[in-house]
């Protein structure tokens, strides 16, 4: 197996050669996206030689919304609803890191019960995001049952989140200083029931999808990214853990109550597309486990939110806080000049870092592997564009 540097050299050589003889009839230039059922808000320019991909160029930026610039004109509370737009399925996690950073800048600590509720919402949102991702992975591989089942079961978790937060997808639940409101009556029992049912369904997913010999045939040993390559490319989250690096922000730099929770960091050493597709599934299982512990350890009494005034002033300075989202490490770098608004806000998303690995995985693989490799990178186009 060639090293990453060899591959980069090879890709550069091919790119130069392709631009040199662009009229070569042997190569076919395909534009996968943005109006292609297998791309999303995103485009990959692909050159194929027969069935082999010789050149791949991910072209992002079709859904750039200027979230970072927009944040500079709104105060810390007003920023919450629009900052969760890049990935609405995982909205608690993307606001979680923001809340942590702002709490550090303002200098407050959320009450203990608030931290627990926030973690529960974050884990539920991780499941919502991953079921959606899994559904699309199923339909990308032509498995229509795997599209319908997670999409249906996702509704149960969404109903749970609706009870908890009042909204179905974009919750705006986590705020600097805790969570917006307390858990509703009878939430614990309801949550446990749904989680138990969901774990049963997860076993069925494994039976119909992950243990299917046809799926294993087409994903195992495809798109190999070794441990060293993964670290050099700077991928994160499930993609990094599929390459055999047990790196999880919840373990490495625990935030809120995660240091009190007992959970395993799921990783696999096979480094292939199957591992990348399997790790998020294992994460969902682990999330169910975590939610059960959180519900068990949560204090019954107490406030959930440290109240701050709307136009609160932050201390001048800078901060960087990150959480483990559904797609990997998600961090906020915020500079404050002592005013009521961020001077500069930068979001570092897992999607953007993972998509950088795409050309290295695609070149040399077959056209039929393109959707399997691409979507296993746990990429959400809108989050990458921000």
């Amino acid at each position, binding site marked *: 197996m060639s090293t990453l540097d060899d591959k980069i050299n090879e890709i550069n050589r091919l790119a130069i050669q392709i631009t040199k003889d662009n009229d070569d009839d042997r190569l*076919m230039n395909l534009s996968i996206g943005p109006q292609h059922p*297998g791309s999303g808000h995103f485009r990959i320019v692909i050159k194929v030689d027969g069935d082999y991909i010789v050149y791949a160029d991910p072209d992002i930026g079709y859904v750039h919304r200027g979230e970072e610039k927009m944040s500079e004109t709104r105060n810390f509370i007003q920023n919450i609803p629009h900052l969760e737009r890049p990935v609405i399925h995982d909205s608690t996690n993307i606001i979680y890191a923001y809340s942590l950073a702002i709490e550090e800048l303002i200098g407050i600590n959320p009450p203990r019960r608030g931290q627990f509720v926030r973690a529960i919402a974050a884990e539920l949102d991780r499941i919502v995001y991953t079921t959606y991702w899994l559904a699309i992975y199923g339909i*990308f591989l*032509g498995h*229509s049952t795997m599209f319908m089942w997670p999409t249906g079961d996702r509704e149960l978790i969404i109903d749970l989140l609706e009870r908890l937060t009042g909204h179905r997808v974009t919750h705006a639940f986590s705020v600097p200083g805790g969570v917006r409101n307390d858990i509703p009556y009878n939430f614990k029992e309801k949550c446990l029931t749904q989680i138990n049912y969901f774990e049963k369904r997860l076993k069925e997913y494994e039976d119909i999808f992950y243990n299917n010999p046809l799926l294993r045939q*087409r994903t195992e040993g495809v798109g190999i990214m070794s441990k060293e390559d993964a670290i050099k490319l700077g991928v994160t989250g499930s993609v990094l853990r599929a390459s055999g690096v047990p790196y999880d922000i919840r373990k490495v730099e625990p935030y809120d109550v995660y240091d009190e929770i007992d959970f395993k960091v799921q990783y696999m050493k096979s480094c292939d597309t199957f591992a990348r597709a399997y790790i998020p599934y294992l994460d969902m299982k682990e999330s169910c486990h975590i939610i059960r512990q959180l519900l068990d350890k949560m204090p019954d009494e107490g406030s959930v939110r440290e109240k701050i005034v709307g136009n609160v002033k932050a201390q001048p300075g800078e901060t960087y806080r990150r959480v483990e989202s559904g797609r990997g490490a998600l961090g906020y770098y915020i500079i404050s000049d002592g005013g009521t608004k961020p001077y500069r806000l930068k979001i570092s998303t897992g999607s953007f870092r993972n998509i950088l690995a795409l050309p290295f995985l695609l070149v040399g693989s077959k*056209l039929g592997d393109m*959707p399997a490799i691409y979507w296993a990178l746990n990429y959400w186009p809108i989050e990458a564009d921000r």
Partner: protein
Amino acid sequence: MGSLTPDFRFGNFVGSIVWLVFVILALVTLLILPIIFFTLFYIPLPEVDGEVLTPYLFFSMMVDPSRTLPIVQFFVHTDLFRAAVFPGFGFAALIAAATIFVERKLLAKMQLRVGPLYAGKVEGIFQLLADGLKLLTKEIIVPSGADKPIFWLAPIMYVSTAAAVVALIPVASGWVVADVDVGLIAAFAILGFFPLIALLFSWASNSKFPFIGGLRALHQMIAFEIPFFLSALPVVIMSSSLNLSDIARSQNIFWNIFILPINAFVFFISSLAELERIPFDLPEAESEIVAGWLTETTGMMYGLIQLGSYLKLYALAGLFVVLFLGGWSGPQIFPPELIPGAHDSNFPLLQMLALDGLYNPVTVNGIFWFLIKIIVVILLMLIVRGINPRIRIDILLHTGWYKLIVLTFINLFVVLMLIYGGIIGPGGLISTR
């Protein structure tokens, strides 16, 4: 009701409808009826019950219950009826339509959905009709630079080729459109046209994704046609005939699937590949090449190709039933008379209900068992779609060229051993003839 023109008058509206009816009636009486009678004057009219069937006699017989049966009997035994209605196109199209509906409902139940629900009040039974009407009203877009004659012809060619395979399938003893002595070879020869049509159409579309899809269709069908043919070879050896009716008749003691289970499996897998169904839907792989060779089809063009592919599904399921499941053979469950004692009854209506000359218990029994078997095979083909992902082209070629061909030879040698050992075949211990 916001779409009325300002100068709308209800009287004018009714008047125009009356005028339209008058024009149509005038056209029929003055033009169409004379044309029909002049044509009938020149063509030889058939004889029914010793009388020449003039139009007048035809209408009088249709209203007289006691004389309706002979005329129905006469039409049932014409070649046109066979080709267009019963064992031919109409029957197959009906089964194809039912298959589409059952597929949607079955997959919906597997995937915890409800499927079609609203069209036709009862479980969306008219969904197919609604879809067909929608496709009919859609504009057909021809891509710029397309090879127009082939582009327009390919969907029609697809349906007619599928209908040609259907014509070879015997539904009951003697009930087949084309009773060819080399029926099996004819079926394979006609099936060989499909990749050609796919490739021609994809080339004529002048687009990249259809072109890749067409090439994939070609690769796939060539890779799977050889195991497809080879898996039918032991059947021919055992029945010593290429006539599909004879092959079905030769299985009256035991079905071929009991001796050739591996070949039946290979035939089933290969027919899934021929049909381009999941897990072998590479030529239409949505997430890779949009819709494959169907990308540029619009409106009824797409509808025709879908109809063709479901006719092909019926034809291949029928071929499987004939080759491996004994065709129409099965225990006799229909009584010798439809209504006991009706034949000798004094009441003309009851006597008519006995369906003299139309009701043949052996034929009806054969059709019944054939239908049961074909429904089971079609359901098996449908369920595969719900539980499998798509496979990759290199795995597909490897499966077709290497694994399936080797598998077919195992059973071929088993059959040859049994024949040379004197167990089956002509003069064998369990001989069928």
